[in-house]
């Protein structure tokens, strides 16, 4: 079976000289939810735009569902759908009209578009708002209307560029459920997000990029395992604290916080030791994708003591 995404030496340099992507190599073999993570300016949206045939790579090669996005752009477009970053539906139609027009434009018959429009609006919870125009919907509902269009398309691979940004926790979770349903149907989703708990909850595979380069890719467990620690202890940075806890593991400074990465036992010992300084209970937590992301993308500065202590 063809890889869902196969990127070889993919490079994009904009006319003003900005290098958005540099020699990006990775492949995703299985369908499911693939999450592309990176700081602002990491190259996520550029990657999505090239994959969606909206922008040309400067060099390298990108295959989507086994097809080169440059040489077989028209064939690629038959099998993909895109919800762009910061996109909004036009305000005057009703949600059902949006979905129907989108499906008919993609080649569906009017009858099928109507039926699928109703099914998807029920699925995303917009059916009861079918009589309202988009301008009368809340921000979350507008995102759902766009999502309904893309999901209804039946595309094998959907690109969702930050679909939950700016939504309240309930709306985000209802979108997660919709994405999980799409995964169960055997479809592939390339999702970009800045919400680490979202990536951790949804992803089958994660790709981390930084400043246009691939940092790592793989499943969440493998990436988290790359941190080399299972637990962490995070405390406010006070004078001498880094030296105090560095003997328990590696320590990093995130702004005004010091984080110790270690195994559970050492982290709990450190917490017990530090209780007298911080006047309260310190919680030891499991290391997650956010920790891996921050460490891998250089968001944390290793303390001198931590490096020496380790």
């Amino acid at each position: 079976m063809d890889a869902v995404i196969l990127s070889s030496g993919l490079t994009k340099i904009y006319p003003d000289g900005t290098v958005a992507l540099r020699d990006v190599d990775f492949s995703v073999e299985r369908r499911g939810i693939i999450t592309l993570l990176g700081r602002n300016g990491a190259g996520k949206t550029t990657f999505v735009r090239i994959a969606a045939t909206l922008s040309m790579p400067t060099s390298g090669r990108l295959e989507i569902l086994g097809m080169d996005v440059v040489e077989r752009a028209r064939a690629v477009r038959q099998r993909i759908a895109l919800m762009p970053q910061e996109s909004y539906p036009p305000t005057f139609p009703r949600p059902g009209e949006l979905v129907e027009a989108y499906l008919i434009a993609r080649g569906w018959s009017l009858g099928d578009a109507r039926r699928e429009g109703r099914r998807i609006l029920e699925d995303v919870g917009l059916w009861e708002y079918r009589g309202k125009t988009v301008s009368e919907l809340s921000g979350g509902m507008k995102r759902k209307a766009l999502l309904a269009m893309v999901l209804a398309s039946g595309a094998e691979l959907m690109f969702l560029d930050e679909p939950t940004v700016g939504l309240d926790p309930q709306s985000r979770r209802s979108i997660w459920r919709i994405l999980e349903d799409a995964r169960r149907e055997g479809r592939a989703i390339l999702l970009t997000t800045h919400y680490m708990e979202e990536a951790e909850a949804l992803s089958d595979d994660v790709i981390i990029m930084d400043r246009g380069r691939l940092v790592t890719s793989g499943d969440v467990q493998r990436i988290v395992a790359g941190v080399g620690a299972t637990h962490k202890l995070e405390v406010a940075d006070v004078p001498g604290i880094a030296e105090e806890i560095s003997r328990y593991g590696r320590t990093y400074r995130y702004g005004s916080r010091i984080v110790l990465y270690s195994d559970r036992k050492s982290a709990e010992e450190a917490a017990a030791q530090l209780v007298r300084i911080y006047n309260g209970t310190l919680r030891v937590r499991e290391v997650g994708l956010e920790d891996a992301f921050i460490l891998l993308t250089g968001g944390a500065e290793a303390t001198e003591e931590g490096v020496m202590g380790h």
Partner: protein
Amino acid sequence: MNGAGFNWFIAQLRAMAALAWLNGVVAAMRAPLWIASYITPPLSILIILRFVSYGSAMSFGIVGGLAMIIVSNGLGLLSDAATYRLHFKFQDLMVAGPVSQWAYMLGLALSGLLFSAPGIAVFIALMGILGIHVYSAAEAAAAIAMLWAASAGMGFSLSLVFRDLKEVWSTTSILVFAISVLPPVYYPLTALPEWLRYVSLISPTASAAALLQESMGLIDLGIYTRIISLALLVAEAAVFFAVAALKKSS
């Protein structure tokens, strides 16, 4: 064209129709005042011409009004398409799929035509009321169709250039003024010195208005000027459409 190519072409026509319905019919039903906004500027000029010329320039006012409605509509695509591209990201959503960029563009252009159709009907009705005859319906129809195509192509291709909507809005109104009021649209081409006539024909509105004026027997262009006017309109429509269909937004 092979079977797959034919099916693809039919699919693109469906896409155009779906977009024209969504952006034209649905939008017009929800906001009918937009339709009136296309009629008011040419109607204002017509009313002024009626009183300034004591009715003698009404025929030119009708021709100018028709041209202005069509070109306002075509250049209105600049605003619509840029808003859809820059603010809604609707263009990316549509063309990252089976809908081609030219089908998307023509769908939006058709939806604009739906908006200007009532205005065109009003001006055609005024022609009947004022007893203005069209002696060459084919010439008039060709002029209107090519003006629509050229201005829509110009509007869409320019929409791909801008990165800020504020620039788009100001540019649209300046362009409408520059190509539908300054050149010989509301006045006869023959009022210009001979050397300037050919320069002015570069504006698609001037070419179309000259052909319309001739089709109504208001001026005599002569065979060469007629051919040049039509050729320029066709060439401009083709160039703008090609640019619009081929240019990627980034």
